[in-house]
């Protein structure tokens, strides 16, 4: 089957004052329609860079991204992004934040009444219909992230990109949000790429877990197919041997095969400090 999204051999090189920095090397990934993909790896390995390339916020140095066989050259609502720090506009209410997206994406296809219904439908989907008319500073972190998801879903994207969507939340809220997300997935069956640090989150939510090697020149290390039946139940899975097998696979990759080698990082830190001193002298 032709993949919906084809990330084809992308390299990403950032020019820096100290010379070129290769963040990604030869990242290659094909994603089918309706798949839920997690990108996992140590911090600084370029997960966000991959997501930003797919979003069109960065243009890759080599290779390219194809969505429905068309090359991605700029950002667009068909690749909606849920940002890590919710990035809601603080002067707009939850409703108005979603409205901004709906007004732009469905400017011609929906009447004002249909738009209103669609905004409310999406806010209801993330269980935010009770606080629609509150501003971001009046609601909790988890609620802000829900509105951020509603805004992305309201764009009716072909691929939903989530950059550590629950990274800033406490463990209980995060678990709650994961359950909500599974519930939404069951209903909409979106194609999702989600970045995460959390092994349990990755196994619980994903169809495939893409594990990335450490940077610089990070690339796809291993891909793990998670073959657990849906709907998945957090409590039942905790004792499931298959679930625990997947979990240990990811942990092994992260902490044995791709262990962050500390001496290198301290050395680079030292040299960074030295160059700083030089530049200020």
């Amino acid at each position: 089957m032709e993949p919906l999204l084809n990330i084809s051999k992308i390299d990403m090189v950032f020019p820096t004052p100290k010379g070129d920095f290769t963040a990604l090397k030869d990242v290659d990934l094909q994603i089918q329609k309706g798949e839920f993909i997690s990108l996992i790896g140590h911090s600084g390995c370029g997960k966000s860079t991959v997501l930003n390339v797919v979003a069109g916020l960065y243009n890759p140095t080599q290779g390219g991204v194809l969505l429905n066989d068309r090359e991605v050259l700029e950002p667009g609502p068909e690749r909606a992004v849920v940002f890590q720090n919710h990035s809601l506009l603080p002067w707009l209410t939850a409703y108005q934040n979603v409205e901004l997206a709906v007004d732009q994406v469905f400017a011609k296809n929906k009447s004002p009444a249909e738009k209103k219904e669609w905004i409310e439908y999406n806010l209801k989907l993330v269980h935010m219909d009770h606080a629609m008319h509150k501003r971001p500073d009046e609601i909790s972190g988890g609620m802000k992230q829900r509105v951020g998801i509603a805004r992305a879903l309201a764009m009716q994207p072909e691929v939903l990109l989530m950059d550590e969507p629950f990274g800033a939340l406490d463990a209980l809220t995060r678990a709650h949000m994961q359950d909500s997300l599974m519930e939404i997935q069951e209903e909409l069956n979106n194609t999702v790429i989600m970045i995460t640090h959390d092994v349990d989150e990755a196994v619980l939510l994903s169809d495939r877990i893409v594990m990335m090697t450490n940077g610089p020149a990070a690339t796809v290390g291993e891909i793990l197919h998670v073959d657990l039946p849906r709907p998945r139940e957090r409590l039942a899975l905790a004792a499931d041997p298959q679930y625990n097998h997947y979990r240990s696979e990811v942990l092994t990759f992260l902490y044995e095969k791709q262990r962050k080698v500390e001496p290198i990082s301290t050395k680079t830190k030292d040299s960074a400090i030295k160059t700083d001193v030089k530049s200020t002298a």
Partner: protein
Amino acid sequence: MPNLVSDFTTGRYDVGFQTKMPPAISAFLRALILPMLGVLVFTLLWSFSASKIDTSLGKFPGPGAVAEQVVNLYNEHQASREKELAFYERQEQRNAARIAKDPTYIPKTRTFTGKETFVDQIGTSLMTVLSGFILAAIIAIPLGIAIGLSKSLNTAINPIIQIFKPVSPLAWLPLVTMVVSALYVSSDPMFAKSYIVSLITVTLCCLWPMVMNTSVGVASLNSDWTNVSRVLRLPTLTHIRKIVLPASVPAIFTGMRLSLGIAWMVLIAAEMLAQNPGLGKFVWDEFQNGSSSSLSRIMTAVLVIGLIGFMLDRSMLLLQRWLSWDKSTQVR
């Protein structure tokens, strides 16, 4: 006795005043009493030191002399208004009488040319500062947004701003006066030339802080919000209207408050220097007049200038709190 001591040290007696009162009331009293105390101490010090200073125009005016002048200045204003009314009444009667005698007569109307009173001068100065300020905002905010959005434009315009920003608008005053007299020629001018000169001076000094603050506010726009706008593919104008403008409202208002404060100070000086109608001219005229009440009238003007400046700043703050989404703005 030891009991009493321990009671005292644990604060059982000490805090009686505050604990018996609900905290809201005690906070209110504090907000009311402390400033009043400050004013009282200042007035006493002022009164005391004023009585020690002798000038060639008599003693330095104390609070009493100022209070007296407040009443005087208000009465003078009332008297002048009555005179003006009487003047127009007489003129009307005279014209009516001439028309009754000769129906072909075209009545002449002359405007009253009495001296401006203190109250008139306050009105003139306020009018000038506000119109100059609004004109500056109309120019500065779009310019600041453009500079904030475009790095190239910023690089091109920044040297000009940096050079003109430290120039006192008073240095411009002679040039502005000459240019206005040369260019603003009309047989029936809508505004007085002096008003135009003061207005441009105010605009010049409001311009730079507003442009700077707006452009910095726009340039430091949260990159997440820009990304949202890019993902939505908002057209440039919608991007400015829906994202850039609301996001920089706090910075824009900071610039506006700053420049309004400077503008009020500069305007008074400009009016003194150019003899343009306003509070500055009042102060200068009183100084030239040199009567025994001159100093107390000037002191009154000084206090009024301060009060109006304070009120202008508070009004801007209220406007900011009303318009801005960022309610954390400090009341200072």
